[in-house]
């Protein structure tokens, strides 16, 4: 059944279909309508979950850490400052290997106050040990939530599903809603590795001395390394059941091209049109959509990079002092490779400014016109 729904409603559908047991969240624009939808459904009795009201995002995640340790499927959603406030607990969730799924609606971090789309909030959490998946459209949002549980519960790591403020969260699109039976067949119930037995209570997250701490972190890295394989299998299964799917990266436009335009989130939708137009005009260009940020899909990117001379990457985020974070990840992970194309790191659209087709075209033209970038950070649309 298809429905015209917003990105936030798509999140709520994903949660409902995943048979989440415990939801705990604190409202923040632009995430609010997700939890409004879920709390109303829970209150009316139509959704059989426990909805925990908390006084902060930190508590929301803490509550889910408890619930997830207890062996049930958990969900929360937040944005911007709310996610920053959760920071300590995000580390805890991954360190305790709890497959919690969190939806973050990308929003800039103040000051100055700004409630519009910007990836700085989720990318500030890149070192917390969470898998991060960025979505392009509302269908992908719903499907990614469902897939996220299966990936998370397989590798025992928490997963953050990310969507752009307003462009997705509050914009309606036609979305195919799977049936409960279909999702049930795809997503088995959560089965914790260390279930709580009240008769034989155990201590969780106990102290680990320097003799063992490093090894626990190594195990988290091992789990991260499993993600590409697991996620591919999960997506393959999803594709076979639902006829659509989402790989870590997706190539569009020319099969072989001198210039690759790399984007994440909703900018990809715009880029698809720009790339198509530029190819018509004779440009040697293809697009790469990056869905998965953590673990960074360097193997997948490297495969698609063959023959490319220049990589243009548009970051809707800024790590002040360095530049766009996707660009940094790309530079860092390519350094040890044989083929190292020039990387053009564009920063644009911070705080919700539209990244228009014109700006994207400007980025591609710049890349074509320059053998190498004149600056580490190439500001796109900046009013100097």
């Amino acid at each position: 059944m298809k429905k015209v729904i917003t990105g936030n409603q798509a999140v709520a559908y994903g949660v409902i279909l995943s048979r989440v047991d415990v939801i705990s969240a604190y409202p923040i624009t632009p995430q609010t309508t997700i939890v409004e939808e879920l709390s109303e459904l829970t209150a009316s009795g139509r959704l059989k979950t426990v909805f925990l009201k908390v006084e902060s995002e930190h508590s929301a995640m803490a509550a889910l850490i408890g619930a997830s340790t207890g062996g049930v499927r958990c969900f929360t959603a937040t944005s911007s400052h709310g996610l920053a406030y959760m920071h300590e607990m995000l580390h805890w969730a991954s360190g305790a290997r709890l497959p919690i799924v969190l939806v973050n609606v990308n929003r800039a971090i103040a000051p100055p106050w700004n409630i519009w789309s910007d990836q700085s909030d989720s990318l500030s959490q890149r070192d917390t040990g969470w898998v991060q998946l960025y979505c392009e459209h509302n269908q992908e949002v719903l499907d990614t939530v469902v897939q996220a549980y299966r990936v998370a519960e397989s590798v025992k790591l928490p997963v953050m599903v990310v969507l752009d403020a307003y462009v997705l969260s509050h914009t309606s699109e036609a979305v195919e809603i799977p049936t409960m039976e279909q999702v049930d067949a795809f997503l088995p119930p959560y089965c914790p590795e260390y279930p709580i037995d009240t008769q034989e209570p155990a201590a969780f997250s106990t102290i680990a001395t320097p003799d063992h701490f490093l090894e626990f972190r190594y195990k988290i890295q091992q789990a991260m390394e499993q993600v590409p394989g697991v996620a591919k299998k999960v997506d393959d299964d999803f594709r076979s059941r639902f006829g659509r799917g989402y790989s870590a990266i997706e190539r569009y436009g020319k099969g072989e091209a001198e210039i690759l335009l790399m984007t994440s989130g909703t900018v990809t939708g715009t880029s698809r049109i720009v790339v198509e137009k530029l190819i018509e005009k004779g440009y040697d260009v293809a697009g790469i959509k990056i869905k998965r940020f953590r673990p960074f899909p360097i193997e997948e990117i490297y495969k698609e990079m063959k023959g490319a001379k220049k990589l243009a990457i548009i970051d809707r985020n800024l790590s002040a002092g360095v530049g766009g974070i996707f660009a940094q990840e790309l530079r860092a992970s390519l350094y040890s490779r044989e083929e190292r194309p020039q990387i053009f790191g564009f920063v644009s659209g911070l705080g919700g400014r539209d990244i228009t087709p014109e700006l994207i075209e400007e980025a591609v033209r710049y890349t074509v016109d320059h053998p190498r970038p004149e600056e580490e950070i190439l500001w796109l649309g900046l009013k100097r």
Partner: protein
Amino acid sequence: MTKQFDFKGASQMPMISVSFGHMDWNKTGAWRAQRPFYEDKTPPCSAACPVGNDIVAFIQKITEEDFEGAWNLIKQENPFPGVCGRVCFHPCESKCNRGDYDEPIAIHGLERFVSDFAASLSLKIRGTPGVGRGKIAVIGSGPAGMSCAYHLAKLHYNVTVFESFSSAGGMLRTGIPSYRLPKGVLDREISNIEGLGVEIRTGIPFGEDLDLDGLKNYQATFIATGAHQCRGLHIPGEKGRSVFSGLDLLKKINLSKKINLGDKVAVIGGGNTAIDVARSVIRLGKKATILYRRSKEEMPAFREEIAEAIEEGVMIRYLVNPIHIQQKDGLRRLDCLRMELGDKDESGRRRPVPIPNSNFFMEADSVIIAAGEEAEVSFLPKGMENRQGIVLTQRDGGTSIKGIFAGGDLTSSQRTVAHAIGSGKKAALAIDCYLSGRDSEEAIRQILIGEGPSLSIFRYVHPEERRMNPHVVTFNELNTDYFEPSERCRESKGAVKKRIKGFGEVTSGYAGSSALEEAERCFSCGTCNRCENCYVFCPDASIIKAEGVFSRQVDYDFCKGCGICFSECPRGAISLEEETR
């Protein structure tokens, strides 16, 4: 410390840090490494009390304005709070930790207040009179004998007390002037003991009208005949006319007998008896001069009583030693030597040494010798060993004759009312052990207050209740941040002019408000008094308010063992121990 694991590598390790075994014993996992717990410890006052009073507990009852509750607690250990509140030398106060802060608690005043309160309501000690657990004889109705009789009666024995004198009380009746201990107070406390079914037979001197053969029907006997003999000076003339012993004089005064002392009375000695005699003499309208061979520093009498005696007009001449009492025209002429202090003797005091050729004369109408007391042992049964007039007993009061126990002044050189009451109590439980075939040594060890020798008979009867760590709380273990300096409440004393006119009580007890104020000064060393500091400070909200053995409990599901409760407890009522497993 929690057990350490040593894995060879990550492949052997679990996915997360999780305990292998169950953690019921410490639900915080490795978080809490030390565990706080409420544990009452011994206050220094109780440890110093020869009677074994539960002082902190009864003072707490006073602060709760439950004066009857306070009385109930005191009489568990002591049938003589009215007596002790007035005449005990209160070693409890010398050891009071508050003494290191400002001034010790006036424990004696509070004890007196409680007993006066009970008297004002005519409260009686309730108990089941002897229900035939056996017949016990007590010889002597002084504080030792009556304390023994009291506790035996409470242990359901039939007790008969034999007293040589015409009324009960022993030294309390004959040796202590009524301006210090009114007869009504003593009568009331003795009648309370009789109320428990104790029979007192007066006018029966042991050794004369009664001997061990006459006590065959009794399963055990406690002898506490006291020390009523005045120690002589061994100087010429001390047996002469108008030369009296201090104890005899006090006895006569206490019985309101007529005595002819003349106008000028010399009292020889420096102990409490000498002071009692001199002050009594003043009250009879005579002049009293105390002659003491050492200096004021060495005087064994209590400071406060010396001061009161001087207030009342008693003269004290120090470093003077009479060597001859001569009779001359109805006057006594004392040939005296002046003394100086030499090296320390075995008592730790500096020895008085005569100054050669310092003789002088002093005149007096009568001379009272109060140079110490001795026990009369000649009438005691054969086979009862004694050394220098002190009957030898085991720790439990047992003598060399089976079934015969002894206590009080007869068995000790520490001749105080409190020691006598304590020895009677100890003998009562020793007799109970003896008759029920229990090991009294072990029983005593179990109920010592602190390191002893004081003991709690309450804990003997109720071994599981009001348990207390024997550790005696020191001043340094208290958190005095929570106490404000405050002055000790003084008891009021009658005007000197008025009090030397008769034998009315000098000191008035506390009014309720003063008692409350004084009781609230108590640090309550080692005993939780529900001040709630722990509850207020606990960062984990892990102090549970609950009724039970402790007034507070720790919620070990959440306590992280930070120890803040331990350090913020003003009185050392919380202990910390390492979590071990």
